[in-house]
């Protein structure tokens, strides 16, 4: 196949996708609505949590700091002993324990004091909110009470030190979900063409199945890239979701995700005959994948499901997207997810070229 026919096929398929409005609007609307709903209306980050304060210094300075924590929205504050509150934190009753250590007033008088804060690390959604809240209180204490911005430094004592809000977690998941829906749709497109006789018609031209598949992969990549851009731009400008990693790694991840989902769509289209059955099977594949693949929620799966979850491509697409977007991960963090996606691509495309039927 020459360049001209390849380019023409890519262009017309992108055109067809664009004119089939429902095809791309549905998935992007789902992503946008999900982000709006979870970003604004039901933001799990602002769920109330309990905060325990331990005053070991019993000074005027320590009292005023403890009082600064009173009266915060959504936060229930209590005081207790170090051992008792740490045990409560272990039991999952608390979002954090703030300890004002002995000698705090003296340190503060000396110019700088540290404030150890222990976080409950088991809930990644809440952690962001808790750290933000504690930091905000300490910042305003520094500014308004001490009058010196770095007087008290928060010393975070949690295994995870990332500030991941729910919307930060959700946005890459929505990118993954959008990529999944649109590209699984290639199965639908292919079977529609087969039913309409368009594949037969192409089959009596010199076009090869491999060339058709390659041009479809290219046009679906273009469409997906535009959707991903929409989701990430919205995430950035509306919800302050930063992309910490490299755009190149992001593009590679999206491309691998597109190919993996296309390959699944092709296999489905190769095995089934009618548009209705392909539609049903794609929904049957996509919905469980959307939830098991952690597009929406960080599920802790029952052990029985773990192998399945580790096998499905969306899990690894989402993992890799979060690695790049939230944590600024590099090749060392991405290679495993990329490898598993690549295995899907090779196996799926290999199978679909073999199973390809013009009619």
């Amino acid at each position, binding site marked *: 196949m020459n360049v001209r026919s390849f380019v023409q*096929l890519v262009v017309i398929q992108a055109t067809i996708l664009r004119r089939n409005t429902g095809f791309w609007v549905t998935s992007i609307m789902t992503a946008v609505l999900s982000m709006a709903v979870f970003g604004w209306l039901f933001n799990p980050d602002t769920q109330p949590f309990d905060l325990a304060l331990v005053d070991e210094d019993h000074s005027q300075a320590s009292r005023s700091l403890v009082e600064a924590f009173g009266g915060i929205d959504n936060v229930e504050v209590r005081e207790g002993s170090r051992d008792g509150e740490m045990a409560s934190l272990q039991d999952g009753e608390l979002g954090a324990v703030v300890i004002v250590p002995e000698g705090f007033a003296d340190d503060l008088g000396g110019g700088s004091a540290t404030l150890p804060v222990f976080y409950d690390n088991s809930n990644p959604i809440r952690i962001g909110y808790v750290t933000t809240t504690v930091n905000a209180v300490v910042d305003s204490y520094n500014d308004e009470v001490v009058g010196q911005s770095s007087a008290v430094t928060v010393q975070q004592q949690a295994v995870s030190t990332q500030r991941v809000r729910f919307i930060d977690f959700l946005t890459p998941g929505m990118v993954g979900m959008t990529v999944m829906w649109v590209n699984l749709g290639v199965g639908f497109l292919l079977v529609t063409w087969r039913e309409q*006789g368009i594949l037969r018609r192409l089959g009596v*031209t010199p076009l090869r199945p491999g060339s058709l598949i390659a041009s479809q992969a290219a046009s679906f990549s273009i469409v997906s890239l535009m959707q991903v851009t929409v989701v990430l731009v919205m995430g950035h400008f509306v919800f302050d979701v930063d992309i910490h990693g490299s755009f190149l790694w992001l593009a590679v991840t999206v491309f691998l995700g597109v190919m993996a989902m296309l390959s699944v769509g092709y296999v489905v289209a190769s095995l089934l005959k009618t548009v209705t059955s392909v539609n049903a099977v794609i929904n049957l594949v996509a919905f469980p994948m959307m939830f098991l693949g952690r597009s929406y929620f960080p599920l802790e799966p029952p052990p029985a499901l773990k192998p399945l979850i580790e096998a499905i491509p969306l899990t690894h697409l989402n993992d890799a997207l979060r690695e790049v977007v939230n944590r600024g991960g590099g090749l060392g963090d991405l290679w495993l997810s990329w490898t598993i996606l690549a295995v899907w691509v090779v196996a799926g495309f290999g199978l679909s070229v073999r199973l390809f039927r013009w009619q």
Partner: protein
Amino acid sequence: MEAGEDVVLAVEALSKRYGSLVAVDGISFQVRRGETFGILGPNGAGKTTTLEMIEGLRTPDGGHITLLGLDAVRQRRSVQDRIGVQLQSQALWPELTVEETLKTFSALFRRRLSLEMMMERFSLVDKRRSLVRDLSGGQKQRLSVATALVNDPEVVFLDEPTTGLDPQARRSFWDLIHDMSGEGKTVIVTTHYMEEAEELCERVAIMDHGRIMAMDSPRELVRGLDFDNTVECTFAGSVERERLLALPAVHDVKKENGAHFLFTTDVSATLAGLMGLTDGNGERVQSLQVRTATLEDVFISLTGRRLRD
């Protein structure tokens, strides 16, 4: 066919089976360059399967196809670059415009005609920016033929091109085929309309149950019949075949869907006998039609069935 003529398509002992059904049963034929060749037969005769094997859509189970001097199975892509095909269904993308459709098909071939010229020729210039889904049936039909000709093919295959068209659209389609033929293209057309085969084809292969029953020019096929006319009649009440066969000048009798076909070498003698038959025995002729023998009669005399029911 004479030896040494320019043969553009040679099919030898071609066969295809689907499970236990033999769709094409070892057929052989040749088509000359520039000829319009028809494959006439009822639905299920194996016409479409035959074309699909020649066009490279299906792989034959046996036999050999030489098209444009190439092995149509092994050198399928090279062959496909030089042929034009219109399938039974008008396979067009509903979401594309006329111009986009032509441009896309055109891009698949090495040899390309000017799209402006194609749109001009098929009266689609005004519709160039219309989506295919908004075209009328006739416009879709013209676009479909245009896509088959974008590569200026040497051989054009048309699979039942006028099925479902109204008589006027069928006439104008026949003009298109005459034009192709006038440009020197070889046209291979399948049909179950005998008028179409008579109108278009220099030679016709009559196909039934996967076999070629007869092959010649329409005129020779009719002339080869042992009778000149057909008397088609229906009776109120039943009439034994033997009594019809015994009528003067009747060569053969076939019965199909309640109608009797009397193949006769002398119409007036047969008709006189037929009148006598009904007068004497109380049977009444309900309908009677006399016509000169046609391809339809060739088919009936070969198979005992009509082309379409």
